[in-house]
């Protein structure tokens, strides 16, 4: 397992799934690195944008927020939230958008809570709020989740459902009227999950070298199907090289 960090593994697992014709809506941090890595390795035509209004970034230094001046220089477009978030809801672009989200809690249907723990009106823990995550979960062609495993995070029921996954199962998104495709992958520090086409429940898709399906299940409050899991391919030398030297040369995200 030496030679790469779990964070790097997560970025590369995501990068490999990004195709040339995708439009990726990024956050800062590891999701941005995944999109950049894809662009530099296998999907040179991928378009990248941020909800703050930047399209097709070409930055020299890693931005630390969606409005960091470093994100602006050299873009093909600088606008604002109305324009960029409308790309999600637009009938032509929305279905091609992939976005990568984080969250505090997730359930078996990929519903997320990014806002608070406990009662929403007097929370035990308050986070920043869902920002654009509710919009992405509702509208984007698909979304992926980056989260560390753990029983506090992979829960039976999220305290506050702020980003819609498959809600309460097959057909629920359609009944609610959500145009987006919902969650497609959950990429954790030990394993990657996908969602069953029929039941819309999360299942274990792959585990990283050094981890077992059973140990992974131990870190979740809900039971997932383990039968389809394979061991994930670790990052190649080439992938790691690009990620480290071209996507985050200052190590602002990938901490030593």
């Amino acid at each position, binding site marked *: 397992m030496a030679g790469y960090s779990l964070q790097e593994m997560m970025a590369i697992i995501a990068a490999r799934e990004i195709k040339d014709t995708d439009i990726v809506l990024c956050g800062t941090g590891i999701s941005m690195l995944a999109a950049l890595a894809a662009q530099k390795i296998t999907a040179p035509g991928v378009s990248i944008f941020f909800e703050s209004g930047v399209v097709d970034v070409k930055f020299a230094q890693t931005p630390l927020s969606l409005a960091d001046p470093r994100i602006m220089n050299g873009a093909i477009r600088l606008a604002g939230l109305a324009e960029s978030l409308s790309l999600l809801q637009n009938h032509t672009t929305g279905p091609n958008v992939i976005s990568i989200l984080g969250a505090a809690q997730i359930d078996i249907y990929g519903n997320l809570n990014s806002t608070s723990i406990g009662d929403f009106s*007097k929370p035990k823990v308050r986070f920043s*709020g869902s920002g654009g995550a*509710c*919009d992405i979960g*509702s509208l984007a062609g698909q979304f992926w989740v980056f989260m560390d495993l753990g029983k506090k995070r992979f829960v039976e029921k999220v305290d506050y459902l702020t980003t819609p996954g498959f809600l309460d199962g097959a057909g629920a998104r359609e009944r609610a009227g959500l145009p987006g495709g919902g969650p497609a992958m959950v990429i954790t520090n030990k394993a990657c999950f996908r969602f069953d086409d029929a039941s819309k429940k999360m299942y274990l898709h792959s585990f990283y070298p050094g981890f077992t399906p059973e140990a992974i299940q131990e870190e979740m409050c809900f039971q997932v199907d383990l039968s389809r899991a394979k061991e994930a391919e670790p990052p190649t030398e080439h992938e790691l090289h690009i990620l480290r030297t071209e996507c985050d040369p200052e190590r602002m995200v990938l901490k030593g």
Partner: protein
Amino acid sequence: MEANAKLMSMTDAVKKYVHDGAVISFGGFSATQCPMAAAHEIIRQGVKDLHVVVCSNGQAVDELVGAGCVAGIELAYGGNGRFASTCFRFRSAAQSGELKVEDYSNYHMTLRFMAGAMGMPFLPTYSGLGTDIVKKWRYGEEDRRHDPRLPVKKLVLMGNPFNRNGGGEQVLLVPALMPDVTIIHAQKADVLGNARITGLIYADVEQAKAAKNLIITCEEIVETDELRKDPELNQILGFQVSAVVKVPWGSYPCAVYGCYDYDPWFLRDFYPKVAKDDSEWRKYLDAYVYGVANREEFLNLIGMERVERLRADKTIGYNPVLNRS
């Protein structure tokens, strides 16, 4: 009207347009282009019971909440990106229940300002259908009936009257926002209030146009004729502006594209320490806000040498040799 009647000091602009109990909106996004000089002046004047409406504001909201100026807030995100993914005073006020927080998404809040800007009562979206953001209301219908600052409903679910062939059968309506006052920080403005935000514009333009009164704080006052050279880049029209305040470094410790960078020392080292502790926080306010008369004195306290090191390279818009690690 005098040509430069709108040009005034921060003290006068806040005194004239920011009243106790006002619905107020701040421009900027996370740690960029927050109108910090205005936020400090509001704290200094002891304005109370503000109802804040923002998309994704960090520093200004946190300091105002921490200083006890804010009773309620409708927002999508309160943080400073990777410096402070959740603002500290905002977090503790929300957890103690002393601050009422009504959650919306960034698109919801943007559409609400856009509706206000366009004079519409609401705008429709599919975002949020099926979520607790739709189901759970921090302000109930009873609260809303009695408080004219709040829309009568958080949002409304309706059937789509133009629906054909399935799909899109229902739609969410989010209510317009018309803040009593919006404050945005621009790079350039003229004395009439015509203003230019360079770089990203976040939801600043919608917030500005939705407002009943609009205060523009700016790095620089320029001649109208300079703005006329690139009319496509002037988003704010003078006749929508109530006050223009010149305040260089007006967004510090947040960044202003093309002018200066954020201050990693302040945002990562200094502020979290004072904001996480109640007595340190009190000391910070006493020294850095109440203890100074204006922006200049605040900057001198921070140290102009430190501040000057943030100055941006004009071509790339930030300081490429800033130590951020």
